[in-house]
């Protein structure tokens, strides 16, 4: 099974131990709202104060494996290791083919962890169809309720947001949100962030796609809205571009030994970002991603240096 992302070698035991030592070191840079754990660092959801690990697990493409039992079992192993490494948030959508069903399969197989933060989306036109779709999604996951439901790509948000707010008021949902990707509809998202009582937004943000830094991320901080970041590696394209260049030696100052760590640390170190959701089919990659959230994170000056360096490569 190929993974559409990373060029990094698998973690070996010594590297895992090293990452563990880094996690336990006193060198972590203090960022607003950031707390340290023995495993991944967390950041608080502004609307509740609940802590979420900075790295979650996406399911776009990676978990759409259909009825392939071997691939489903492999996905379950990724989920098992994700939770064992301190992960919580798994994100999916009805748009992602069989991903919801595969997540449900994995959760059943590994015994639904109490730490699970289940995030899904509604992706259909019309309120009635949306309610039916969200219920179907819940059944596919095999969970009593979702923690977070988001309006996928703002599709039919006028119909779905009232439903989500009602579900939250009735205790059938904990958080509400809206999503976009690939830098689209940022203007509409900004308007909704200003006008609707949203708990979460989800958007694309990475070393190359930094438009969200201009308005949406500052607005999320100002309005107290949690931010989930999709496509932190541009579905692997970002890493393939960077792989043509050597990693700068100063990357070691933030415990980066490869471009994937470099790219992920850049994303999760933004103070507005609550959680990034890289998708992977490999246990080694999910462990490395979780380890990335445990080591030192770049401060503002280092983040600027990272962005400038990547820009200089283009």
């Amino acid at each position, binding site marked *: *099974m*190929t*993974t*559409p992302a990373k060029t990094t070698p698998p973690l070996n035991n010594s590297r895992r131990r090293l990452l563990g030592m880094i996690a336990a070191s006193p060198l972590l840079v203090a960022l607003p709202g950031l707390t340290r754990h023995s495993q991944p660092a967390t950041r608080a959801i502004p609307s509740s104060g609940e802590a979420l690990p900075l790295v979650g697990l996406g399911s776009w*493409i*990676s978990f*759409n*494996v*259909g*009825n*392939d039992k071997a*691939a489903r079992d492999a996905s379950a192993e990724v989920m098992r290791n994700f939770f064992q490494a301190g992960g919580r948030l798994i994100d999916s959508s009805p*748009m*992602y*083919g*069989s991903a919801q069903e595969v997540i449900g399969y994995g959760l059943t197989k590994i015994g639904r962890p109490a730490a699970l933060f289940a995030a899904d989306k509604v992706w259909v036109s019309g309120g009635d169809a949306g309610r039916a779709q969200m219920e179907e999604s819940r059944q596919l996951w095999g969970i009593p309720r979702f923690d977070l439901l988001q309006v996928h*790509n*703002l*599709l039919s948000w006028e119909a779905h947001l009232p439903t989500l707010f009602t579900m939250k008021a009735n205790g059938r949902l904990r958080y509400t949100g809206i999503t976009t990707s*690939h830098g*689209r*509809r940022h203007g509409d998202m900004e308007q909704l962030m200003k006008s609707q009582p949203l708990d979460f937004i989800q958007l694309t943000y990475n070393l190359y796609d930094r438009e969200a830094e201009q308005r949406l991320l500052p607005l999320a901080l100002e309005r107290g809205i949690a931010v989930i970041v999709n496509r932190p590696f541009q*579905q692997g394209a970002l890493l393939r571009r960077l792989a043509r260049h050597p990693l700068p030696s100063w990357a070691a100052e933030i415990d980066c030994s490869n471009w994937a760590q470099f790219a992920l640390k850049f994303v999760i170190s933004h103070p507005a970002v609550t959680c990034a959701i890289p998708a992977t*089919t490999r246990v080694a990659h999910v462990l490395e991603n979780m380890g990335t959230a445990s080591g030192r994170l770049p401060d503002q000056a280092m983040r600027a240096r990272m962005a400038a360096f990547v820009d200089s490569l283009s």
Partner: protein
Amino acid sequence: MSEWWTYSLRDLLLFSPSTYYRLFELYNIEWWPLQIFALALGMIVLLLLRNGSDQARKAIAVILALCWLWLAWAYHWQRYASINWAASYYAAAFALEALLLLWLGVIRQPPGMAEARNKSGRSGMVLFVFALLAYPLLALLPGRSWTQAELFGMAPDPTALATLAIILLGSVRPAWWLLPIPVMWCLISGATLWAMASPDFWLPPLAALLASAMAISSARKFSGQT
């Protein structure tokens, strides 16, 4: 999806190449040894093409219709739909093509249409033999496995190409209503393969476009002679 036209094909791809090709592997394993029967059907079509009688041409249309119907159910509905929600629409289109083949190739088949013995006919024969015998060999490309072979009657691409070949050969007339679905499928398949960076992405669309151009050219010459 709003602003869907601003997405690239690769943004819209729902699955990884390994999942896609694994789909064929599991499908082949599930239905083995039906592949032998499918290959035999392809050979029978070749023999029927040599025969060229009205009954033979009707038999070819029936065989093709059964293949399209099978693909609608066993491939698109049962398999591909598990990783691509659009496959349910593909299943409907493939079932429609099967009905068109039965209607135009059997019920409405005009008598006395001889096999085309022109350039278009020869190209059709080459394309049919390619779809039947060469297309499965693409599974030997690097990174794939022979168990993922795509066979006439079992997989959509070689079946669509074989159907276009039969249309080129003039053995199923009138052909125009039979062209759009195989051509559209070849374009969709090519786009999918391109999005997955498969080196053979150009094959289905190129074959479909060439076959369409030759069918149109042949029809013009035919109408000019009559």
